[in-house]
């Protein structure tokens, strides 16, 4: 008897749902749907809400009964939790899809080919859409974010390095404070810049003030992400650096930080995503302009959030609403790009 005659059992996955299991749960959901449909049409209940609630209740009940009959009461109770957890995730997803869909459907009406070529210096929000664009807003947002990044990246990185490299006695309280700082309401950041810089010193609103306010919101995000990233660098590298005679400064600057380069880029991107749509401090301290202004140190500066805010609140016509949604669309696209690149970078690393 040769070895080829021995039957090797095919590897199975008995814990996974089999095809008939999947079919049965699918049928349960379908029958619950049909039941809901009948119920809504027979009883006075009506509307999307009634469909939604009744559908979920009937799925829970049907699934409970099915499990009760085919298995036992424990399995039946278990099925209630699994249906409820699916309800939780569905309720989380509905707003996401609704928001993204709304922005794309309403936003594209306000787009035109010259939108990134014109500013609103000669147009009011109620003018025809082709009359103006959001050049000033996009440039303003870029400048605000860039200047904020120049300040907050070094500070955030130093905080991260303190928490991972120095590991001093203050590590715990500082971690605590960074966390607390990430909860500072954005309007308070604006008020702080007003009270600390604008009223006592400059007495004028400008892009730089906006950047300073955004810095306060950006530092905790960068610091926390930088800490996470630096923590991932293996201690072997640090020890190797020190063993080769490097000082701690050289080890950190030439080994640890370069090794964490892509992670730190992620930190920057997440920091930008955090502040790019921040509105409340922008409204308080940048002044908000309709004209392109490339000097962050002088004169009021426009930005995407301000553009959207102004279009929605001062307009009221169809054009202004379309403008607002178009601005929102551009802002959302920026966030998508930032988020996608952050995921791409961190995905490539692991």
């Amino acid at each position, binding site marked *: 008897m040769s070895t080829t005659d021995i039957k090797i059992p095919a590897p199975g996955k008995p814990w996974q749902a089999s095809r008939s299991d999947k079919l049965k749960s699918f049928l349960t959901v379908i029958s619950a749907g049909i039941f809901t449909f009948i119920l809504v049409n027979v009883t006075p209940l009506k509307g999307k*809400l009634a469909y939604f609630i009744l559908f979920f209740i009937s799925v829970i009940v049907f699934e409970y009964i099915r499990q009760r009959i085919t298995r036992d009461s424990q399995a039946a109770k278990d099925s209630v939790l699994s249906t409820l957890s699916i309800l939780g995730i569905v309720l989380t997803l509905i707003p996401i899809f609704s928001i993204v869909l709304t922005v794309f459907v309403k936003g594209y009406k306000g787009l035109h080919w010259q939108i990134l070529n014109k500013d609103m210096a000669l147009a009011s929000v109620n003018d025809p859409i082709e009359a103006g664009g959001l050049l000033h807003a996009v440039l303003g947002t870029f400048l605000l974010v860039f200047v904020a990044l120049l300040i907050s990246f070094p500070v955030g990185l*130093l905080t991260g*390095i303190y928490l991972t490299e120095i590991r001093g006695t203050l590590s715990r309280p500082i971690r605590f404070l960074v966390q607390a*700082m990430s909860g500072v309401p*954005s309007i308070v950041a604006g008020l702080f810049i007003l009270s600390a810089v604008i009223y006592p010193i400059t007495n004028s609103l400008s892009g730089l003030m906006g950047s300073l306010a955004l810095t306060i919101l950006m530092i905790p995000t960068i610091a926390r992400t930088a800490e996470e990233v630096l923590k991932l660098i293996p201690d072997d590298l640090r020890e190797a650096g020190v063993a080769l005679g490097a000082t701690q400064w050289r080890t950190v600057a030439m080994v640890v930080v370069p090794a964490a380069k892509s992670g730190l880029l992620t930190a920057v991107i997440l920091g930008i995503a955090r502040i790019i749509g921040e509105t*409340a401090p922008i409204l308080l301290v940048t002044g908000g302009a309709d004209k392109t202004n490339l000097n962050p140190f002088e004169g009021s500066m426009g930005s995407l959030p301000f553009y959207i805010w102004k279009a929605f609140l001062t307009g009221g016509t169809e054009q202004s609403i379309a403008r607002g949604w178009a601005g929102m669309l551009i802002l959302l696209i920026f966030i998508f790009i930032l988020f996608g690149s952050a995921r791409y970078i961190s995905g490539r690393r692991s």
Partner: protein
Amino acid sequence: MALLEDRVNSVPAPRELTTKPRRSDQIFRFVVTLGGMSSLVILGLIALFLSIKGIHILNEKGFSFITESRWEVVTDENQEVIQSTFGIGAMLVGTMLTAVIALFVGVPISILGALYLSFYASGRVKTFLVSLIDLMAAFPSLLFGFWGFFVFMDSAEYWAKLINKYLGFIPIFQVPTPIFERSPFIAGLVLAIMIIPIVTSISREIFAQTPLDRIQAAFALGATRLTMIRAVVIPYGRGGIVGGAMLGLGRAMGETVAVYTVLNVVYAVNWQMLFGAGGNIASLILLKFGEAGAYEVDALMAAGLILFLLTLVVNFAADFLVNRFGKRGR
């Protein structure tokens, strides 16, 4: 011989052994520590400068700044303040009301969603959903605000009418006049949607820290997922979830733009959450700032200080809970 002697002399003296860091390291440590202290410095400066501007208002008004529910300032033709009443009582009530509604709606949904992500979903579905929810956490509040105003309001108004019709005998669901638009209820729901991604991701992290051996022990003893979650995951993560909910509370209390757009900011104490009037401290600041004179700005700074301290306390408590209970199993 002379050559050899030269050689011997040129051997460097043994380096002095010391644990004292070099000059460059001392500078490095100093700079990094300075950078690390930035969060402390900034938080301190925020408290300091808001106090400098606002403290005289708090001194003048005393305790009534918190309890009083009027915000009026009377000026003569030279913009001199004749008489003023500042009190954030109504807005404090509004802040609490909207934040509590947000927690009441948002936290159960987040916990259920996090349970799904941690114990039911797997593979690509999980990765996709997690990144989608992380993405939602990065949506600006402006977006939530205007979506809430233009899209969500209609449905929410309809739900508010239903609640009022069938549960109207409960005092908080009553309305003085049938105005259901722009109510604290709707603002609370929008805030709930805003905090769901945050609370979900924190709960997921907490659930992920449940020791695997205990989970497997529960399954080995014949537990279903429900009994496993009830016996292992929930007792283990309870404190962390409370902490996550409080982080959501902090975010909901400090929210400005979304509340300002969705809620009809009216300066009066309103407990009836379905009625279209209310506000929170942050939206008050934004509303009054535009037309405020110097004296009123100081009062707004004082309100900002109170809001800052409030969110700071909530965040400290939240962080304490998350760290205390979240890291226990590691």
